[in-house]
């Protein structure tokens, strides 16, 4: 699994890491039952705080991407197809959010943005 952290990104570190793990799961790079690295060694390797990794693992578990067994570790769980579909939808939402943020910094109004979206959507 490849995890790259960007210091130039506006996204919080935990979110960058979480998104890349979810990507790896959706792309099938991580399969059902695959173990995620231990919190301490993962944190050391990518040079973030253990608290960040703990937060990533907690959220992944809450969102159903992993299961954890006390004292053993955290494992990938891909059982739920609906969930995966949801998460892909979630990815679209996230990209929309980025789009909206960029639009806001450029002072593009909601109406203009909607108009752009309509045109681009119809083109396909």
């Amino acid at each position, binding site marked *: 699994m490849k995890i790259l952290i960007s210091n130039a990104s506006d996204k919080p570190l935990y979110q960058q890491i979480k998104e890349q793990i979810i990507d790896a799961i959706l792309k099938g790079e991580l399969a059902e039952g695959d173990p995620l690295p231990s919190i301490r060694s993962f944190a050391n390797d990518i040079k973030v705080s253990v*608290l960040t990794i703990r937060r990533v693992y907690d959220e992944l578990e809450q969102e159903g991407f992993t299961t954890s067994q006390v004292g053993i570790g955290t494992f990938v769980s891909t059982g739920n197809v609906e969930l995966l579909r949801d998460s892909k939808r979630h990815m679209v939402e996230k990209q929309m959010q980025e789009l909206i943020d960029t639009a806001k910094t450029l002072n593009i109004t909601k109406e203009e943005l909607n108009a752009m979206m309509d045109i681009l959507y119809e083109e396909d």
Partner: protein
Amino acid sequence: MDHILEVTGLNNSYKDFSLTDVSFTLPEDCITGFIGVNGAGKTTTIRTILGLTHKTSGSIKIFGKDMESNEQELKNRIGIVLDEGYFYDELTMDEMKSIIAPAYSGWSDKDYKEYLDRFSLNPRQKIATLSRGMRMKFALTLALSHGADLLIMDEPTSGLDPLIRSQLLEIMKDYMKQGGKGVFFSTHITSDLDKIADMLILIHGGKILFEQDRDILLDNYRLVKGDSKALNNENKKLFLNIQTTDFGFAGVTDKLLEVQKSMSDILVERPTIEDIMLAYIEGGQK
């Protein structure tokens, strides 16, 4: 999450200096950096935690137990590295060890020898002849040779060259891999913390200014640079500190969106721990 160390409402006053309501907690499995400029109260806090100086009020709990009433038991579980060293110069390292070892019920000669080896220290060398780096390594060897669950260190990296500092940081990482441990170390060299700290506590003038997860701290703040003309009395308040020159300004903020709304053409960067620390200290003096 369990707390390894819990300091509540610590007050302590001396003629020229006082600790005021110092409170913080160390979560388990975390390396906590205790930062502040010289004279901020780092050493005083550490000495008070260890019961080496009297406190006016406040409570200290280690592994959930009160420090004062369980001092013997708790000190057995703490490894301590203090700035001054507190060794007898005339003794060899082995002689010094034989004075200290009996104080700990969990002392392990095997661990002691392993660390000496790892640090390339000769146990028959006199302490007076050790360099600063070697003294630190010896102090760390003693601190790590009795199965301590909490490592408390006062400025362990100050005055050491980058190579020894990075060795020391590696040892801390290895130590944490065992699980259920905690490290609390004070420093004014914030670049060491960029590499290993999980939690950061900033003390200044005897008061705690923040206690925060390192990554959240770095995520929350941004260093903004721009034209000084864009600054006004309103948007200045969005910054912790602002430095202006003839060519522009630079300031640290945790309200980036509002800053972006009030001025255009700015550069936004992620700050370092040092930027944030200085911003807090300068901001507090305004």
